[in-house]
């Protein structure tokens, strides 16, 4: 019996050692980072797409584990569990997550605007949306918040049906929703397929609103600012590359999304990528206030909105990186 136990322990130890041995040894020079991004979000975060495709972070000495997510809220769930170091996603899920006490901070902007509401042909005005159902990427998304904004402004009730952005055109075609709001290029794709027409762009609803942002952990910013600086330097280079090589970037987007070039070009008309990539602070504040009003961030969490935004948005690293240039 004792012998069997001994052999079992030995077998377990050997198996464990083998498993450990099979892991690829990390280069001592390489710093490993985990970068989360959203599926089919190349138009909103072109710099992240470029960093990934051109292996810019790897060239800067990082070993990168790229992780793809269906929506920002899912990325934030992994972030909250410590599985992600950097991410690119909508500001709204970041604000919601920060409101829940997660140590997430915004470093830079990825884009402003860039979402549209596409509806079936019978809907002509905002008032026509009363009692209608719109697909949104989720309760914790900027798009969902924009629909709330339309409803409040027009004093109407819009039903929110949450779904994957890539499924939205199909749901619209099948008549399961009356319209949807999504990030580019999905609205342009639905219009191109003849499933509906564009009612509003997010520019019409909230001009220059902050959309996607680049985030990291507050603890990382404090304990390992060098890594954050290096990532931000690469990010800035990717932003500049995008400004200088637009056609090549569009070709990348066509390849990544599988959509036609004219759809991508049409969709890009709704997206702004301001450079230098500072965030629109009043817009962040406005969005956070809307989230508190809508009950998505609990009221008692935020005592002072300005402080909350200051704690969330840290442009210092970006400033330093820009000064260096």
């Amino acid at each position, binding site marked *: 019996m004792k012998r069997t136990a001994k052999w079992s322990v030995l077998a377990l130890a050997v198996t464990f050692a083998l498993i450990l041995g099979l892991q690829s040894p990390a280069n001592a020079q390489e710093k490993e980072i985990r970068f989360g991004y959203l599926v089919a979000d190349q138009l909103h975060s072109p710099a992240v797409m470029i960093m990934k495709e051109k292996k810019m972070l790897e060239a800067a000495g990082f070993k990168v584990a790229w992780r793809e997510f269906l*929506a920002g*809220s899912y990325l934030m769930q992994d972030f909250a569990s410590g599985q992600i170091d950097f991410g690119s996603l909508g500001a709204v899920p970041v604000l*919601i997550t920060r409101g*829940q006490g997660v140590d997430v901070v915004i470093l830079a902007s990825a884009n402003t605007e860039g979402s549209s509401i596409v509806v079936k042909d019978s809907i002509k005005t905002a008032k026509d949306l009363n009692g209608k159902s719109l697909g949104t990427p*989720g*309760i914790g998304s900027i798009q969902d918040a924009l629909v709330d904004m339309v409803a409040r402004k027009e004093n109407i009730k819009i*039903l929110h*049906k*949450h779904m994957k952005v890539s*499924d939205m055109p199909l749901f619209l075609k099948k008549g399961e929703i009356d319209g949807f709001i999504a990030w580019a290029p999905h609205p342009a794709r639905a219009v191109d397929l003849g499933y509906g027409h564009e009612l509003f762009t997010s520019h019409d609803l909230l001009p220059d609103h902050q959309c996607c942002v680049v985030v990291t952990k507050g603890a990382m910013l404090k304990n390992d600012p060098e890594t954050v600086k290096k990532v931000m330097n690469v990010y800035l280079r990717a932003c500049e590359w995008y400004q200088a090589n637009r056609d090549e970037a569009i070709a990348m987007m066509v390849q990544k999304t599988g959509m036609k070039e004219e759809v991508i070009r049409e969709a890009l008309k709704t997206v702004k990528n301001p450079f230098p990539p500072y965030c629109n602070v009043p817009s962040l504040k406005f969005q956070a206030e809307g989230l508190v009003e809508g009950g998505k961030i609990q009221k008692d969490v935020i005592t002072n909105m300005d402080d909350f935004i200051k704690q969330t948005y840290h442009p210092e690293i970006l400033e330093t990186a820009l000064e260096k240039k």
Partner: protein
Amino acid sequence: MTEKRKELFKTVGYNILSLIGVGILWTLFSHWQHSPFFPTLTAIWKAFVGLVEHGDVEQIGLGAHIWASLVRIFAGFAAACLLGIPLGLALGLKPKLYNRTRAILEPVRFIPPIAWIPMAIVLLVGFSRYVFLIWLGAFFPIFITTLMSVTRVNPIHVNVAKVFGAPRSYIIWKIVIPSVLPDIATGMRVGLGIAWMCIVAAEMIGGEMMGVGRLILKYAELIRMPEIIVGMLVIGIIGFFMNEVFIIVERWIFRWRSEVSID
């Protein structure tokens, strides 16, 4: 007090004690963690009251979410029973037919309902989509249990009937079906459990505003653990009560079975 009643009191008492024990452990752990991601029992209770009194962030009440899920589950489960039991019986009675169609039936069994989601989105609409995915989950336990139980019918009973010249229909209705009914009931119970497991996957598709799975996902997006746990507990508690009711009904219908007990 009879022995049986004493045992019942003991069982209930121990279950309550276990619950209190888990509650104490949870409380200690949540205070030790002091994290919004491991909420205290008080926070969970407050979330439950909030959901009942004011509804979720879209003002949809907890009752409406539960009702929507229950309707979907019953429809999917009923469809699974309606197809799984007759098909299991038919193929159990005709083993050759089963063996000749195994190449179709068996691989399908291993495809998880979640893998059918993209097809369900394209081919089905609204309610039917949920029913289909729940049906997929519940169908195979019911079908396989029925099928296997037919092959395990005591051959002595069948042979005696044959010796006395009983027709095939008599053997099926008077011997096979009564013999397999307890196993079918077990298969249905397992299927019902899986149906509950499928509801979150089915409701993940989206396109509907209500359902307990939807409620969990909504709050997962807002990273609000107390409400998520309320949704999880609702599924667990409803599933538990449904299972208990099923066991009571099963015991009553097949009470002849409990007359023989090893312990």
